[in-house]
């Protein structure tokens, strides 16, 4: 099986990795920024924050992210998958522009361009490093 080109289903997994992480982080931020400051002296307050609705929704999205992320890591390099996770920031920025009609500053447009070029750059290369196979043992387990 060649690892240099991904199948359409694998690109779909990378798409899921891209979109679910920034959306989950956004929900976490909304949940945490509405809470009073938490001190290290009271770590139980940090645990209680986990059960607030916004944080629960954020965690649910991040679990979806983690499942698709693990699947991607099983057939692609970490340094190939990580730029795809960053592309989610571009999707969220474009959604905020065209769906929520928020203003995007020139520096944010520059960020979108840099991420898009960076992801396109790495996507053209091989998705996985092929290491030389270890010497085969005459008796394979199982």
């Amino acid at each position, binding site marked *: *099986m060649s690892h240099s080109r991904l199948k359409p*289903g*694998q690109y779909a997994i990378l798409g899921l990795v891209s979109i679910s992480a920034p959306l989950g*982080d956004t929900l*976490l*931020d909304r949940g*945490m*920024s509405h*809470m009073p*400051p*938490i001190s*290290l002296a009271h770590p139980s307050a*940090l645990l209680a*924050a986990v059960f607030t609705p916004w944080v629960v929704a954020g965690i649910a999205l991040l679990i979806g992210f983690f499942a698709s992320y*693990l*699947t991607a*890591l*099983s*057939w692609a*390099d*970490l*340094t*190939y998958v*990580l*730029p795809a996770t*960053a592309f989610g*920031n*571009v999707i969220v*920025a474009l959604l905020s522009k065209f769906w929520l009609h928020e203003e995007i500053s020139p*520096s*944010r447009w*520059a*960020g*979108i*361009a*840099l*991420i*898009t*070029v*960076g*992801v396109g*750059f*790495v996507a*053209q*290369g*091989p998705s996985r*490093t092929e*290491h030389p196979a270890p010497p085969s043992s005459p008796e394979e387990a199982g």
Partner: protein
Amino acid sequence: MIAGIPMPDANHWAEAAMIATVVLSSTAGEVLTAAAMKSIGDLDDIRAVSGLKGAIKAVVTCPLFFLGVGFLAFAFFALLFALNHLPLSLVAPASASLTLVTNAIAGKIFLKENVDRRRWVSAMLVAMGVYLLTQ
């Protein structure tokens, strides 16, 4: 101040420590998780042979995976703590862009990935882009 050089105050050190904790624990977790998934093999192939249960079993019986998840869980709580004390406009760009660079370094050293010029350039472009986008 020493010889006219302004010294960072305690707040700046605390901010740097919070962000460094998120970045380093996240990098350790991602590298360990990636190592676990590499040792398990292609999950699509395992699922084709053993079904979804077989794929889940392959993941949850790998000790390296749990070590990675432990670091990622620590990074998650470190992120919650940082978000509670620092603005998102500081935590998000700093941790996201630095993590991309530290992961590229760790991927080359610990996972022996072929981080060629293409991947270095991509990591730097994406790190700068994330910084600009999230600040």
